[in-house]
């Protein structure tokens, strides 16, 4: 071997084959009971069906995949080593460059999202899907405060979403409150639920918190299903009033003493007006959320969240009240989830406990994790991907959760920080000896 090999542990082809063969063998063992054999209903009884062809194909795929993966990892490592040798740029510089790209992308995305309903003003499907994406973006930003900034794993985020949605639904159908009156009340209600749940639990370690929030999410759903007098049970609440544009309704004919949107502006009535209005509404809500969260990050409380995420014991040693800091993150996250829930109820006009299952919590968590915990742009990217991928291929939809799960594992193993995340120290020492705050730049 005369060629210069950069990898320290270059594997021989035989070693590669043996490695892949071993992985394929494990795949075979794991595959036999689930892929190779299956039980099917044969005339009221179960019968066994074998799928050894599929199993063989799967094992072959695992073998090839392992070979390829191993090779790709080695290649990537070599290239990285070479690059590190050649360039003098530090990791911080590179992160800075990447951040500039992300910033530009953010402005492009903002422009595109404002222009979208104008370009597609007669395409109901596009506007509807974009609205869904924005709901998830907003939920992701809300959860990002809890998971990404404060480092508290919340697996029952959908509970606060449900609290928001049901409070708007009940306030509007039972007491005739309008969207704008109910919005702050519902948000406050969700936040108080967050405090109520968080206060006893937040003193505990992070992984307990995960399970308790998961349990809380399920409790809320079980109550909504079973307490029929309150929530109408599994049938849900229907004919929830839609939001109006400063008192102007989006209906064909004006209600008594009122005016329709189309009538006021002298436009011809079109059902698209409402969709576009809803789209801009959620866009504004999401942008407000973004501005709010970005501001908070620069305040002492935001700094405290991130400090807490990095090292709780150090925070306690510095005299910070960790319970209150966690509680504030939890309450603010819950409030943002509640706002998103109000919008969801107003947009759908119908809600039922079906919409608030653990799967939904897992999807929102996946958005935050995949995007890079703490990264606002990452959430947008992940939400867009996760909503659009199943839209593009309907056959693909049943694999969606499978891929979510797989992606969560792979991303954690590959980049525990997420796709677009840099955990830079807030203050670091420059070569010239001056200290510079790089945190803002790095986000």
């Amino acid at each position, binding site marked *: 071997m005369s060629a210069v090999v950069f990898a320290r542990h270059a594997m021989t082809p035989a070693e590669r084959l043996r490695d892949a063969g071993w992985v394929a063998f494990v795949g075979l063992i794991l595959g036999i*009971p689930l892929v190779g054999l299956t039980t099917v209903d044969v005339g009221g009884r*179960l019968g066994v069906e074998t799928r050894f062809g599929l199993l063989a194909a799967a094992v072959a795929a695992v073998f090839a995949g392992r070979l390829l993966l191993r090779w790709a990892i080695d290649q990537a490592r070599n290239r990285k080593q070479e690059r590190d040798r050649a360039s003098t740029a530090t990791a911080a510089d590179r992160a800075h460059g990447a951040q500039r790209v992300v910033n530009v992308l953010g402005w492009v995305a903002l422009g595109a999202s404002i222009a979208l309903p104008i370009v597609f003003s007669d395409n109901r499907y596009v506007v509807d899907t974009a609205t869904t994406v924005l709901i998830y973006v907003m939920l992701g930003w809300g959860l990002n405060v809890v998971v990404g900034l404060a480092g508290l794993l919340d697996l029952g985020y959908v509970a606060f979403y449900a609290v928001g949605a049901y409070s708007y639904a009940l306030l509007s159908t039972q007491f005739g409150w309008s969207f704008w009156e109910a919005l702050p009340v519902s948000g406050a209600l969700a936040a108080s639920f967050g405090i109520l749940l968080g206060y006893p639990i937040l003193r505990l370690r992070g992984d307990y918190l995960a399970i308790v929030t998961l349990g809380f999410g399920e409790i809320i759903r079980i109550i909504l299903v079973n307490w029929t007098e309150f929530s109408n049970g599994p049938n849900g609440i229907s004919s929830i009033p839609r939001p109006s544009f400063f008192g102007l309704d989006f209906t064909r004919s004006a209600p008594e003493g009122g005016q329709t949107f189309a009538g006021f502006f002298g436009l011809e009535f079109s059902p698209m007006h409402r969709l576009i209005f809803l789209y801009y509404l959620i866009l504004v809500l999401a942008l407000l959320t973004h501005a709010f969260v970005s501001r908070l990050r620069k305040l002492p409380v935001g700094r405290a969240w991130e400090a807490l995420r990095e090292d709780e014991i150090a925070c306690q040693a510095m005299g910070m009240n960790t319970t209150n800091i966690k509680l504030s993150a939890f309450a603010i996250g819950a409030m943002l989830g509640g706002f998103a829930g109000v919008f969801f109820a107003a947009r759908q006009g119908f809600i039922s406990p079906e919409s608030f299952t653990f799967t939904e919590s897992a999807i929102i968590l996946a958005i935050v994790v995949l995007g890079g915990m703490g990264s606002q742009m990452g959430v947008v990217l992940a939400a867009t991907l996760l909503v659009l991928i199943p839209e593009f291929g309907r056959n693909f939809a049943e694999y969606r959760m499978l891929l979510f799960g797989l992606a969560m594992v792979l991303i954690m193993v590959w980049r*525990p920080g997420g796709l677009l995340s840099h955990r830079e120290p807030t203050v670091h020492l420059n070569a010239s000896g001056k200290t510079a705050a790089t945190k803002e730049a790095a986000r």
Partner: protein
Amino acid sequence: MAYALQQLINGLTLGAMYGLIAIGYTMVYGIIGMINFAHGDIFMVSAFIAVTAFTILAAADVTSIPLALTFVLIVSIFFTSAYGWAVERTAYRPLRGSTRLAPLISAIGMSIFLQNSVQLTQGARVKPIPPVLEGGIVLWEAPGFTVQIGWSQMLIIVTTVILMSAFTWMITQTPFGRQQRACEQDRTMAALLGVNVDRTISYTFMLGAALAAVAGVMVTVYYGVVDFFIGFLAGIKAFTAAVLGGIGSLPGAMLGGLLIGLIESFWAAYLWAEYKDVATFGILCLVLMLRPSGLLGRPEVEKV
């Protein structure tokens, strides 16, 4: 009175199963300090393996029940341990020494992945098997109500007692048990003294999965139906049991399992059956608030 006695029997059966699953949580927590979120789904996989094995036996006209049960147990334990090993190897080992949140999220991903892969490969429908063990012993003929302990319930309780004794012996007396406890106390020190830490952790996962596999077979025998979603609730309840007993403590897990099983069946019998899951979660919150170290656990001191 008769009714309460029947609930006691049902509760003990349920509790024995929760206890078996809870040991998997508590052991893993003890050794690497993380909640193995996918453990409930490992249990679910084992139930599916048991259904397949029972169906194969039925097709092969095996009528001897002890033979069938032994075969199903061995098959299920073998494959489920393989799953436990593979989950640890792929999703948790690369993350050792990472942040606290990373392995937890990867575990949730693993749980979602397992659930959906079973749904895709085995179908979303409920799988029923014909009853394996029918009948039982009538304990008490009260007027209007008969207290009965089913053969399957007896099987579950007896198996659990035997397994627990064997398991306690293994942890306290064998070299593997010593290594396991050493890793639990101080992984670095154990490694310095020549304990293969990675292998011990792998064995711990396999052992936990094997116990979950026994629980999976028992559930299949007892209820006769499985679906891909059973792992979620069973996992949460077993975790509650582990926390209630004091996470990291093996007798605690068993005790917690029994308590949760009893509370659940009495709650369902005398209060509101539809809110029995709420009761479990409520207990979890109460225990964490009032006594975070559980009934038999030691308070945890985190050092810098």
